[in-house]
């Protein structure tokens, strides 16, 4: 196949998988059950777009269920955010090509919440790095990070290089992280993921988290923010939470015989460092953004409940990012109307940092941004925003008052 007997696209896919696999220590390819592919114009540019179009022209089609990660445009709203027509048109071209390729074009980073959950022990080729960390850690499925081109290659072959988190050995914990404080809400879990990712900063290290006595087990939404932040800050793809995740009934089970690299302790003051930011009390807040990852229906419900009868301050924008499935349910339930009446807005099928964040900042004349997502804070400081991490309630208070308190 590598010589092209099965077509140029198959040859390309096998060659890519062999090259990346060789660099990472794989000696064979193994079957996978599904693909989650990240492809968006912002990072792939003309070269990536033309490559996907070339693959499709060569007859490339996905042979396993393949869904798409967040794209770089909310097609219904992008123009109002200053996204260039050129970007919108190229993103449309990309999605036409992906449709011919045979994807389920959900444009979501939470496929595990709204499309299908991964199954324990199932081998996958997923791209969105937070989704991979969730699939491995929370569900006990088995995937490495398969970035955009690697995910398309896996969709063509139905295979993935067999190394890393496909294998039991690599999934054992290398580090113990003892949490000595209580964690409350997605912002705390996001901060823990950020801190842990920063400490480990290595794809091949696996933390085993030991929660404080009496700590309530995390919700799925809290786990998704934890996984997304750990992946974003530290390239972490696998974790255990003792007594919570399926390969960590005990600390010994999580660690097995792997040599422990370090023992870390997390306190409230450790996490507090993540909540200090480039914003000062009294600063005008231009944007309050719930994003990275996209919100589940449960998270949307909580935002609306905590917002209550209050409205967003003039001069401040409250933005929630969701996928099209969640938007449709919000419409049906009357929640979108409630959000918009309160002065809030949606971005759908994208994530705030994916949709041309520099163009959006210039178009909105916005600089300051508050969010409960450490991942969003991590990414946007490179795009010229002054960002801060805050709890859900503090974010909503800032949206209503217009100021950081």
């Amino acid at each position, binding site marked *: 196949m590598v010589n092209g007997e099965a077509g140029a696209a198959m040859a390309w896919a096998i060659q*890519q998988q062999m*090259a*990346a696999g*060789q*660099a*990472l*220590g794989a000696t064979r390819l193994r079957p996978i059950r599904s693909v989650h592919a*990240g*492809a968006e114009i*912002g*990072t*792939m*540019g*003309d*070269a*990536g777009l033309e*490559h996907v179009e070339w693959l499709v022209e060569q007859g490339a089609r996905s042979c396993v269920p393949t869904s798409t*990660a967040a794209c770089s445009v909310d097609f219904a709203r992008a123009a109002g955010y200053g996204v260039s027509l050129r970007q919108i048109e190229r993103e449309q071209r990309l999605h036409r090509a992906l449709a011919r390729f045979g994807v389920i074009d959900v444009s979501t980073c939470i496929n595990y919440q709204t499309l299908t959950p991964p199954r324990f022990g199932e081998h996958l080729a997923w*791209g*969105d*790095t*937070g989704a991979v960390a969730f699939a491995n850690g929370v569900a006990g499925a088995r995937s*490495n*990070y*398969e*970035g*955009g*081109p*690697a995910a398309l290659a896996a969709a063509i072959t139905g295979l993935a290089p067999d190394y*890393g988190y496909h294998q039991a050995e690599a999934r054992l914990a290398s580090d113990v992280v003892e949490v000595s404080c209580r964690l409350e809400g997605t912002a705390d879990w996001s901060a823990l993921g950020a801190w842990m*990712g920063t400490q480990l*900063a*290595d*794809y*091949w290290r696996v933390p085993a988290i030991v929660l404080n006595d009496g700590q309530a087990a995390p919700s799925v939404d809290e786990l998704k923010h934890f996984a997304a932040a*750990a*992946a*974003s*800050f*530290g*390239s*972490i*793809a696998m974790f255990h939470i003792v007594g919570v995740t399926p390969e960590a009934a005990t600390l010994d089970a999580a660690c097995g015989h792997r040599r422990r690299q370090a023992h870390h302790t997390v306190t409230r003051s450790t996490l507090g460092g993540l909540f200090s930011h480039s914003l000062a009390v009294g600063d005008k807040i231009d944007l309050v953004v719930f994003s990275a990852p996209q919100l589940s229906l449960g998270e949307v419900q909580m935002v609306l409940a905590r917002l209550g009868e209050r409205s967003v301050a003039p001069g401040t924008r409250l933005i929630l990012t969701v996928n099209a499935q969640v938007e449709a349910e919000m419409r049906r339930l009357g929640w979108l109307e409630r959000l918009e009446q309160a002065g809030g807005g949606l971005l759908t099928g994208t994530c705030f*940092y994916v949709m041309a964040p520099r163009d959006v900042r210039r178009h909105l004349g916005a600089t300051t941004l508050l969010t409960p997502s450490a991942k969003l804070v*991590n*990414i946007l*400081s*490179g795009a010229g925003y002054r960002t801060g991490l805050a709890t859900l309630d503090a974010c909503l208070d800032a949206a209503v008052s217009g100021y950081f308190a």
Partner: protein
Amino acid sequence: MNHLASPRLLSGGRGVGAAVEGIAIVSHQGFNARYDLDPEHGTFCRPGHDLEGQSFANRIYCFRTPKGGIATSWALLDLKRRGLAPLGLVCVRMNPIVAQGAALAGLPILDGLEPDLLEHVRTGDAIRIDPVQGTLAWL
């Protein structure tokens, strides 16, 4: 840092791609093309980044480790098309994303060198990397 004790060869690495010679540009930080680069010009734009304002175009980019996110898996090809990509990548520890991005763009990549890459290579050093041999040598 004791330069007199510096080795002339780092070895024991693992990688893929053709050997390449060039001038090193060194960062002691992590890397993600979306988080750290100005997408238009390919220059490091993250405030506080140790290469802020600089470009790795046509240099051998030596860095600590990739951050999360998939951006780099696509971005290296587009940077190469626009003449903004490095000649090759060397890191202390790679992850799949940067390896896949290098494979797509046809750039050599290498990691796992001994002794430690960032202890010895300096920006401006003329070096040769050979991913198949797993070596980095000074010219």
